[in-house]
């Protein structure tokens, strides 16, 4: 795992550069199993940075979450770079941003951190309950060690890490300017058995499953806002004129929202699982995204967020593309 001292020193160095205006990383949370993402501007704030398996949030989301107000007349916009610390999945979001021209490669400085997996707070809370002090975590070989106060517990990966980590195809950053720590060896592979398992249900069972899940949605839009790929300035579901989706919550409007969200991520989802992690109503949102991921992979042999030179899936065309879905 990356040395914390090295991480802070590098971050400080980067923040001292004249062409960098802010850095996105993680600091210890106030409680529990998740760190707090943080955006810092002063080099001296780098002492608070950490990286360990509690750093669950996708840091790339905070690049596109930055709010840019109109610059007052006579002033120049700040065009200095944003530095960002990334895990493997976070780095894929950055690649996809660049592919989609959300910003230029030159606008950011990427501090890549090889990742050994991040904690699933739901799994951890089943073991420890909600804890009032922040936990610390590390990995040693195949084991994950979670430290809560003076208590230390060792887990198998599957017992405590997020499901995405149990099928992680890219634990090392796929793009970086500065690599912190040694690259790690891939420990898992993805056979999409979760998608196949769901597929094996009857249409009736599938619908009754989603009906129950969508019915409980409170449309807080946390899944949309946390998604690194959801960065439209004016989202179709909150647009007021014309209003495509009603604000009222019911099975119909909620379903429209979720299907729409999933479709807009076709060929774009980089599987960071943030949508599912943040959901206060425990809706297994990734089940939809994973289906799209598999579909895109099988039909177009396309995997987003790996190559900055790639074209966006929906903006590319190949005469050999399958077209059996076209009536």
């Amino acid at each position, binding site marked *: 795992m990356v040395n914390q001292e090295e991480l802070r020193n590098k971050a400080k160095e980067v923040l001292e550069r004249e062409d960098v205006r802010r850095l996105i990383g993680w600091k210890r*949370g*106030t*409680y*529990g199993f*998740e*760190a*707090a*993402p*943080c*955006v810092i501007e002063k080099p001296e704030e780098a002492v608070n940075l950490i990286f360990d398996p509690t750093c669950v*949030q996708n840091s790339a*989301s*905070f690049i596109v*979450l930055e*709010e840019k*107000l109109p610059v007052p007349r006579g002033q120049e916009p700040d065009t200095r770079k944003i530095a960002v610390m990334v895990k493997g999945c976070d780095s894929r979001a950055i690649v996809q941003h660049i592919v989609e021209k959300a910003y230029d490669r030159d606008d950011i400085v990427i501090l890549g951190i090889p990742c050994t997996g991040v904690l699933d707070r739901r799994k951890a809370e089943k073991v420890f*309950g*909600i*804890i*009032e002090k922040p936990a610390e975590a590390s990995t040693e070989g195949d084991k994950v060690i979670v430290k809560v106060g003076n208590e230390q517990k060792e887990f198998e990966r599957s017992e405590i890490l997020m499901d995405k980590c149990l099928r992680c195809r890219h634990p090392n950053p796929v793009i970086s300017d500065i690599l912190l720590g040694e690259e790690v060896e891939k420990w898992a592979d993805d056979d999409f058995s979760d998608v196949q398992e769901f597929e094996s249900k009857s249409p009736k069972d599938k619908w009754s499953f989603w009906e*129950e*899940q969508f019915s*409980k949605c*409170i*449309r*807080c*839009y*946390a899944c*949309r*806002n*946390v998604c690194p790929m959801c960065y439209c300035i004016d989202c179709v579901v*909150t647009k*007021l004129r014309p209003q495509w989706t*009603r*604000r*009222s*919550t*019911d099975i119909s409007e909620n379903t429209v929202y979720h299907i729409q969200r999933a479709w807009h991520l076709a060929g774009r989802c980089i599987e960071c699982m*943030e949508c599912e*992690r*943040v959901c*206060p*109503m*425990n809706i297994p949102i990734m089940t939809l995204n994973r289906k799209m991921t598999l579909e895109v992979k099988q039909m177009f042999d396309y995997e987003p967020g790996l190559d900055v030179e790639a074209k966006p899936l929906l903006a590319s065309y190949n005469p050999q593309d399958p077209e059996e879905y076209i009536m």
Partner: protein
Amino acid sequence: MGEYKFSKENLGKVLEALKDYKVYAPQKKADVVRFQELSDPSEITLEFTNTNVPPKEIMFPQTETLFRFKVGGQDIEPRVPEPTDKMLVFGLRPCDARAYSIVDKLWQWDFIDPYVKNRRESSTIVGFACSEPCANCFCTSLGGGPADEENLDAILFDLGEVFYLKTITEKGDEFVQKCGEALESAGDVERKNAQAQGKEAIEKIRRSIEVEGISEKLPGLFNDAIWKEFSSRCLGCGICTYLCPTCHCFDIQDETEALDGRRARMWDTCMFAEYTLHASGHNPRPTRAERTRNRISHKYSYFPEKFGVVACVGCGRCINFCPVNIDILDILGKVKEA
């Protein structure tokens, strides 16, 4: 005031006997605990610290039809709930009950909201004392407590083998009359156990904030850097407000299908950009910093200034559910330091 007990196996029988009421009770469905109308007594769950969705949704549903109309017509068909429908809210945590009484001040302020008022007046509230507060509970800082009886008609304690039920108001006594034969009268033993449990629960509360002074301090921090500091990682989602038992903002929209229309109101949140978006395109709260400031200031400054009470009950939901660790106690701590 009466004191009763009943064995755990008899919970179903007690609920079964309450035919006169529309009973709302915590139920766990698809991994979420929330208050819903109880059609089958076996579906109740009392295994929770705080429900995912606060029971404000019973009085103030997320989406509610105010009236129906015909497009082009002049008549409306109101949908105000009848005050005669007797409702029983069973298993409400004392903090959530406190939230009811706090927000009532607004619902019955310059305009009396008949929708909420009728439900509130026709409700009997049976509280459920906490024995295991969650790590982020801080109700004791805001004048509440895990076994606080204020705002309740009766309170239930889980004493292991039996439930101890104590009535507090006449409405509570009336409820007990309907509970049927499963109730036995309770004595000193149960009372003492319940009191001990309440005391222990207070000691188990690990987080706190000294509220005094915050209300006066906040207006002076209107342009302070702390708002930007916290909001730089804010997602701008509705979790903290939608799941807050005292947040009560709503939007009103007309929805039509062919010639049938309804005017509905639905939860809104000051954390969304559209909340303050003007028709001109101007937004007086242009970034999440102003929105975060509003969320905290409304609870801890504007509301107390107007109604004399802080609009927060310390239930901990906004802390527990925030995906980016924006911790209200952390913010309030910084406010005090500033």
